[in-house]
């Protein structure tokens, strides 16, 4: 493997891993905040017990999300020196803002929330969990602004003397259409993730028929959040697809393995072949007009093929191969979309059961809901592979190739050592996190905590 392969693999592996924990953190933070708000409003102690129960699951995941986020910040400079120099002027700003505006908020208030039971007044303590949730969501906003700039660079000019990108308008960066839609998409996916996990945990307890009245509350909350967010996530995703067809046509054409221009274009449910050697794949079950609709938002829209795009790019950027990995594009798009569909259907089923007041007794539904917990993680990973691999061979679309972004002074062995260190460490952490998550998800719900004379739970939840 070359240095480029290793550096890309390291970035892919650490980012995917990091993003296993990000959506569940954002999603659960909002859901736990809702639970605590329900306790605050209604005074029903069941909600207090649930807040504490799901709060522990939240804390277990935040821990890994935070520490693996550090690796992301360092990695740009470590492996991608030329990239960092080239774009630091534009790309560094949102990262620094993230630290100041969001990360301080999230981390400080997380400490206050965990250790603040009984020390803070009920109202202030409720505000701290909302601050954590808002901090987490804000943090994602700045990261998405930075990432969207790599997909569709705006608000900059190239300094003729230094040859580097220079920020000229921060508002353009923060109102980049790719950013606005991609950020919405990520937040919705995070809420889907959080609610599916909450549903799965509740289903496990309902299946065992303990604390039915309590876990029915979280099952309902999860379902009520899941159905609209899953629907909107798909709609926003489809809108994002149309935007990307404008700015990154390669990404969308590759997601259908569409080598030659088509009009109108059909969408295949799945297919055999489609790689570089086989440009006319066998489409199994093709749905006419669907690709036109998804990519261009019109019934008869034209999707330019990969071959034609590549010819255009060669004319514009010089000789080279500008087609991303078609296999990854095609399948990551489908894994993402199909899982979203599945999760949405599961949600609809649950809502129907809820309406018929049978959710706590529907055996098959509960059984499936427990296993559904793993689905959002595959969905999120596939979504990122679609968007990041689809940008290749560019590191910044149209401005810098990935291979040009590397650190010349770093040698292959160094990257290999680092990659193996992270793989080992992350592997161990995944096992520990998995064990703790399962253990705490299956724990019996703790009874109502002891109250002090002000009607507040006594301080607890310390390390």
């Amino acid at each position, binding site marked *: 493997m070359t240095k480029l392969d290793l550096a890309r693999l390291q970035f892919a592996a650490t980012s995917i891993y990091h993003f296993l924990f990000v959506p569940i953190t954002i999603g659960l933070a909002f859901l736990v905040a809702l639970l605590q708000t329900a306790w605050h409003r209604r005074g029903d102690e069941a909600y207090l017990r649930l807040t504490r129960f799901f709060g522990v699951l939240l804390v277990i995941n*935040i821990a890994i999300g935070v520490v693996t986020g550090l690796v992301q910040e360092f990695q740009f400079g470590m492996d991608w*020196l030329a990239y960092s120099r080239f774009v630091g002027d534009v790309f560094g700003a949102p990262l620094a803002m993230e630290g100041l505006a969001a990360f301080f908020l999230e981390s400080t208030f997380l400490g206050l929330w965990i250790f603040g039971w009984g020390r803070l007044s009920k109202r202030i303590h409720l505000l701290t969990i909302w601050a954590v949730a808002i901090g987490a969501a804000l943090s994602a906003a700045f990261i998405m602004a930075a990432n969207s700039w790599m997909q569709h660079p705006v608000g900059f000019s190239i300094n003729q003397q230094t040859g580097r990108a220079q920020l000229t308008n921060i508002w353009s960066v923060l109102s980049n259409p790719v950013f606005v839609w991609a950020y919405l998409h990520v937040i919705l996916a995070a809420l889907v993730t959080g609610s599916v996990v909450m549903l799965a945990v509740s289903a496990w307890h309902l299946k065992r028929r303990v604390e039915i009245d309590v876990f029915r509350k979280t099952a309902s909350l999860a379902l009520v959040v899941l159905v609209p967010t899953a629907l909107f996530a798909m709609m926003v995703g489809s809108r994002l697809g149309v935007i990307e067809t404008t700015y990154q046509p390669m990404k969308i054409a590759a997601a259908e393995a569409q080598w030659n221009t088509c009009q109108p274009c059909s969408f295949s449910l799945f297919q055999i072949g489609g790689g570089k050697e086989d440009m006319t794949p066998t489409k199994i079950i093709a749905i006419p007009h669907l690709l036109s609709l998804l990519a261009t938002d019109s019934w008869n829209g034209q999707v330019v093929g990969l071959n034609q795009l590549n010819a255009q790019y060669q004319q514009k950027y010089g000789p080279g191969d500008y087609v991303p990995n078609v296999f990854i594009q095609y399948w990551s798009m489908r894994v993402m979309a199909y899982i979203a569909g599945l999760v949405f259907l599961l949600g609809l089923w649950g809502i129907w059961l809820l309406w018929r007041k049978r959710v706590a007794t529907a055996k098959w539904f509960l059984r499936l809901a427990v296993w559904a917990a793993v689905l959002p993680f595959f969905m999120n990973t596939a979504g990122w592979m679609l968007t990041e691999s689809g940008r290749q061979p560019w590191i910044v679309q149209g401005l810098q190739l990935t291979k040009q972004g590397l650190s010349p002074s770093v040698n292959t062995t160094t990257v290999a050592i680092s990659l193996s260190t992270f793989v080992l460490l992350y592997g161990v952490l995944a096992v520990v996190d998995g064990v703790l998550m399962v253990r705490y998800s299956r724990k019996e719900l703790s009874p109502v*905590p002891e109250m002090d004379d002000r009607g507040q739970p006594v301080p607890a939840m310390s390390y």
Partner: protein
Amino acid sequence: MQVFWFIVIALFFTGFFVLEGFDFGVGLLHGVVGKTDSERRLAINTIGPLWDGNEVWLIVAGAGMFAAFPGWYATMFSGFYLALVLLLFALIIRGVSFEYRGKREGVRWRRTWDRLMTLGSLLAPLLIGVALGDLLHGVPIGANQEYTGNFWDLLQPYALFVGLTIVLICVLHGSTFLALKTTGDVRDRAERLARRAAPITALAVLIFSVWTQVTINRGVIPGLIQVAAVLAAIAVAWLIADGREGWAFTMTTIAMATTVLTIFIDLYPRVMVSSTKAAYDLTVQNTASSPYTLKVMTIVAVLLFPVVLLYQGWTYYVFRRRIAPSDLEGQEPVRAPAGAAGAETPGPGAAEAPAGD
């Protein structure tokens, strides 16, 4: 504007070491001041609500470097590659060990996380200290701002000594913090430790000051702020003996701040010294972002940073109380995250086996 951002980044590193410094110290010392598991928990809980927010100072310092001095960030992070991998390893195991050690009972589980916490708390300040020493002492940097050395070039005696000094100050800082925030045996042990560590740390800071002067060719007589650092470290021994823990903690804060600031003051206007040739030094001018970016960042920082200081300060106010052993009684985080102090009689293995299986 570039100067302003150099100051901002210097202050963020200083703030990081002042705040996270005692967290590192507590992480290093929890096994020394705590003979039993509950004593160790007591020590760790003094920084429980604070360490995470404190660590963000480092993250913002790094991101600020990226935004304001991309050239500095790029050269430093790629040049210090393997050292940073080690630093990330240390920060990861440390961060996780805080959250996870209490999540299960069992001696082996706890001891493992205790050891990882100690290791992480030792490595992190040591490595960042060595890195700061390298910035000032100089590392091989070529004409294109490229790092031309290897991992071993980073381990030069001066840099290693800066790392050691920083670790010693963390130990002292952590012990005065523990003395200030705990009661009982833990407090006594922390005080004894602080009294013993103070002269050693003061000596190290003195050597550091002289060595730094020699490094930057300014003779051997330390400047005013270095003298202040040495005096502050010595004063800790008397203040602790006098029972004035608050003042002792203030002194270790001063010792830490002045030591870190010394490096940045002597560095300016350079940000990274080239040992190859003075002309290749990285400076605030040749690594900075465009004026527009710096202006945007300045507005954001001026608007947000006071708010951050306000709520972080408030956190310290909320958790100002000393922690006594009785605070943790019956609050095994595993068994009763709901804080059902004694209300719940823990059945045998309640925490071990998934309930109901």
